[in-house]
């Protein structure tokens, strides 16, 4: 309708400085004119005449233009100020907030990774794969041969220091150097036991080396119970399949009854001896004494780790024994062999106590207690089977008393961990409480673990795509600039057309990040804290100083970006409306977050079952899947909202100019990616705690899929033809909506992060405030577990009295 076009153009000409308002008012007037013309046409007037009549009824164009301008002048001025404010502040604010959050996330992540690294492997290069793939970080890898020896060692000490720890070869070397030294032989036999007998695995293979070493050990030390115990454990675990479940009523599956019986007999023989001497703790202590503290590891942590690693071998023995024998005793009782069952339990109890009297704090004490409790619980069941209810109740009481001691041990560990940094204490808590049989502590520990893992995954998810998007936008801009597109669309940094500058910018991010890491973060993280407060002060200084530096840099960059925007004169929608914004947030943020919360709380989650080292990879997978679902919905909803806003004043976006991430090829690509990830997720599901939860290849494939989809989406967005409504669409998306969405996401991330930290502290606090800590001060590493040993000496005396066994010399 050319008459209307000219008239409306004349009427709204003074509103041109505010293109959005001009479009809005023009469309409003047009609908009125059309209605009037239609009514006139319906009254019998011809089309041209009815349009002329509509224009005439509307009034003089010049007069109306002035009136409209006057009526909207105040609004236009306000909107101009808002637009200017948005141009000048929104982008810098977004960059500032982004950099702040990213820096905080990076520091948090770096601290967690570094301390996790120190606590579990201190092999910095391997930490990320270990975290992501959930591989096991056993205590036996803590004192490794690559830790350099101290200077000024004697020849013997040097020989000792140079041996690789925890290997058959090192055992052989020690025995070859000194064949009659009992502790070297014990160490060698233990190494054979673990590396060749392969305890607990199906198809275990006894080797002649091991049998010979056992025989030789018995010759060297006839009174040492170690060789009988090792032989018996190997026989038992190779002739029976021990279920993982911790209950005592699940039957053992005995594959070789003869071998099993010989194993049980061996245990009885072992129980008759005075003591068990493994020397492993002494050897490890010696070994760590001749080595330096690894670089970057706090002395306190090193002490703790050495203590932790000392008893790894004994832990394994007790672990296997205490799972098989009480079960077997219960089975015997069921068959009426009460006396035999009690005799067997007596023997295992005695073995536990033998280990207990020489244990100091840490994993050994915990394992001894766990084993002892299982034995006592087994005895209660056997006595119940025999109808001796009083005795059964006494056994149950004894088990409860030992359970209190066990709690105290874990409590002491946690409190000891608290003396370190917050992160290491958390991680020590996590590590120290694995497979701990107390439901309250397990629940709280798992909650803390979940928070740590989610926070770390969140940091990764925040860091990776934003940095990736920055690099991609620069690269794609280079491509678009090289094609000299002239459709009015000018992406970021397009003025930097010369390749060296673009390359410099791309390189600047990792280079600056690397410099900050190596010059500031890494040395400070390696700082050995004198006290907990000292470490907190360092952390605080880091958290304040680093973001300020980065933020200053980001403001400079943002100012440059803003200036570029200010120079452009293209229509921009100011705001899509609160309802539309709420809808975007509901479907793209709140709904996926709620769904994930339900998944974490209601459905069985492996993390809650098996703990952090087993589940972190899966959790990262969860977050990746969530981000692609949420990200796709976010794009879709945002684009839909802008399209609707444009349609309000008659700006229709053709399908080929409109970005619809859930439709067409994009939608298919997204569905394929989500399905592929889900398939990988299900296919790699291995609900067995001893296996790696997520094969590296599947995680890499999932990451590649997510990255590929993101790249494809970004690419398609940049390739959209852009003129008229499409230009306004993209302008609005990039300038108005994107900053708001990013700020929202980051704010939501910060809230989630804070909530997780709070949950974590609350969970740890709940453990700390438990009312069972009779050994609180005594059972610490510093006192060397004296109270615990004394407790077991008392048990030992009692056992001897009951069994009329002589006191040891």
């Amino acid at each position, binding site marked *: 309708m050319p008459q209307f076009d000219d008239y409306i153009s004349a*009427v709204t000409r003074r509103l041109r400085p505010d293109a959005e308002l001009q479009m*809005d*008012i023009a*469309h*409003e*007037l047009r*609908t*009125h004119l059309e*209605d*009037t013309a239609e009514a006139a046409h319906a009254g019998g007037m011809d089309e041209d005449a009815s349009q002329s009549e509509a224009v005439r*009824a*509307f*009034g*003089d164009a010049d007069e*109306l233009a002035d*009136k*409209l301008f*006057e*009526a*909207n002048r*105040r*609004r236009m001025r306000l909107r101009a100020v808002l637009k200017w404010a948005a141009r000048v502040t929104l982008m810098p604010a977004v960059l500032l907030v982004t950099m702040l959050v990213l820096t905080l996330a990076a520091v948090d992540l770096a601290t967690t990774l570094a301390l996790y690294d120190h606590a579990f492997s201190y092999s910095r290069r391997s930490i990320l794969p270990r975290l992501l793939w959930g591989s096991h970080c056993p205590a036996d890898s803590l004192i490794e041969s690559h830790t350099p020896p101290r200077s000024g060692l004697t020849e013997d000490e040097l020989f000792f220091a140079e041996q690789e720890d925890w290997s058959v070869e090192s055992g052989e070397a020690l025995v070859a150097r000194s064949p009659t030294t009992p502790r070297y032989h014990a160490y060698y036999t233990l190494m054979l036991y673990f590396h060749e007998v392969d305890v607990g695995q199906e198809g275990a293979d006894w080797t002649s080396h091991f049998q010979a070493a056992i025989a030789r050990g018995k010759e060297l030390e006839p009174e040492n119970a170690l060789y009988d115990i090792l032989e018996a454990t190997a026989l038992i675990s190779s002739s029976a399949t021990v279920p993982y479940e911790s209950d005592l009523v699940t039957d053992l599956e005995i594959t070789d009854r003869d071998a099993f019986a010989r194993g049980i007999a061996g245990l009885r023989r072992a129980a008759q001896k005075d003591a068990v001497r493994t020397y492993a703790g002494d050897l490890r202590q010696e070994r760590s004494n001749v080595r330096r503290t690894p670089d970057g590891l706090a002395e306190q942590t090193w002490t703790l780790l050495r203590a932790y690693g000392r008893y790894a071998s004994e832990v394994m023995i007790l672990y296997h024994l205490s799972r098989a024998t009480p079960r077997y005793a219960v089975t015997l009782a069921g068959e009426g062999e009460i006396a035999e069952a009690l005799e067997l339990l007596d023997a295992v109890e005695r073995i536990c106590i033998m280990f207990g009297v020489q244990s100091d704090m840490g994993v050994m004490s915990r394992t001894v207690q766990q084993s002892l409790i299982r034995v006592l619980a087994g005895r209660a069941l056997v006595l119940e089977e025999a109808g001796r209810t009083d005795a059964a109740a006494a056994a149950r009481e004894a088990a409860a008393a030992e359970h209190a001691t066990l709690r105290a041990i874990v409590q002491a560990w946690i409190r000891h961990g608290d003396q370190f940094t917050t992160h290491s204490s958390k991680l020590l808590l996590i590590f120290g409480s694995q497979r701990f049989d107390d439901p309250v502590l397990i629940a709280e520990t798992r909650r803390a673990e979940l928070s740590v893992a989610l926070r770390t995954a969140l940091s990764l998810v925040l860091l990776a795509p934003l940095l990736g998007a920055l690099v991609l936008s620069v690269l794609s801009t280079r491509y678009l600039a090289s094609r000299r597109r002239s459709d009015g669309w000018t992406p970021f940094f397009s003025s930097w057309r010369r390749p060296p500058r673009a390359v410099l910018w791309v390189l600047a991010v990792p280079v600056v990040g690397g410099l900050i890491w190596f010059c500031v973060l890494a040395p400070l993280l390696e700082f050995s804290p004198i006290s907990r407060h000292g470490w907190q002060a360092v952390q605080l200084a880091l958290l304040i100083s680093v973001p300020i530096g980065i933020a200053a840099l980001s403001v400079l960059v943002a100012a440059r970006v803003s200036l570029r925007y200010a120079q452009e004169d293209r229509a921009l929608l100011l705001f899509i*409306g609160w309802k539309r914004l709420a809808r975007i947030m509901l479907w793209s943020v709140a709904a996926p977050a709620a769904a994930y919360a339900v998944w974490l709380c209601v459905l069985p989650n492996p993390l809650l079952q098996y703990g952090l080292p087993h589940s972190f990879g899966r959790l990262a997978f969860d977050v990746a899947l969530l981000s692609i679902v949420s990200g796709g919905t976010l794009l879709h909803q945002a684009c839909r909202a802008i399209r609707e806003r444009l*349609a*309000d*004043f*008659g700006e229709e976006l053709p399908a080929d100019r409109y970005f619809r991430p859930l439709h067409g090829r994009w939608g298919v690509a997204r569905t394929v990616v989500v399905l592929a990830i889900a398939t990988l997720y299900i296919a790699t599901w291995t609900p067995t705690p001893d296996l790696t939860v997520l094969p590296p290849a599947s995680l890499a494939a999932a990451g590649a899929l997510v990255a590929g989809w993101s790249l494809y989406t970004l690419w398609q967005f940049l390739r959209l033809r852009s003129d008229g409504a499409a230009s306004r669409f993209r302008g609005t998306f990039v300038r108005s909506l994107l900053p708001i969405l990013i700020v929202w996401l980051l704010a939501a991330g910060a809230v989630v992060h804070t909530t997780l930290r709070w949950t974590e502290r609350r969970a740890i606090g709940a453990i700390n405030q438990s009312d069972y800590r009779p050994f609180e001060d005594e059972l610490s590493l510093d006192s060397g577990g004296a109270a615990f040993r004394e407790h077991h000496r008392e048990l030992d005396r009692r056992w001897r009295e009951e069994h009329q066994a002589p006191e040891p010399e």
Partner: protein
Amino acid sequence: MKFDKELTKGSTALIVLQLVQEGETYGYEIVKVVNERTNGRFEWKEGTLYPCLHRMEGAGLLAAHWRDAPTGKKRKYYRITRKGRTELSRRTAEWHEFSTAVDAVLMGAMS
């Protein structure tokens, strides 16, 4: 009968506020209703309604949003705000007082 321009000027806002208060409506409909109720005596230039609507929207007396009309056409609808209602009450009272005063003067002259 054609009213004097100065006479109608002050009443436009009152009329528009009253009509919008009766229910959400758009510009064309307001003009139509006014013409129906006054039998076309106001003879508004239809365009002049819009500056009035925009001024009141700017002042927070009205709120506007785009939505589909029952006919399927997209129209900009106006609804009255709380502030608008207060203003309508004030203006209505003012109008009554004014007209009563004018009537009183005119009646006095007649009697």
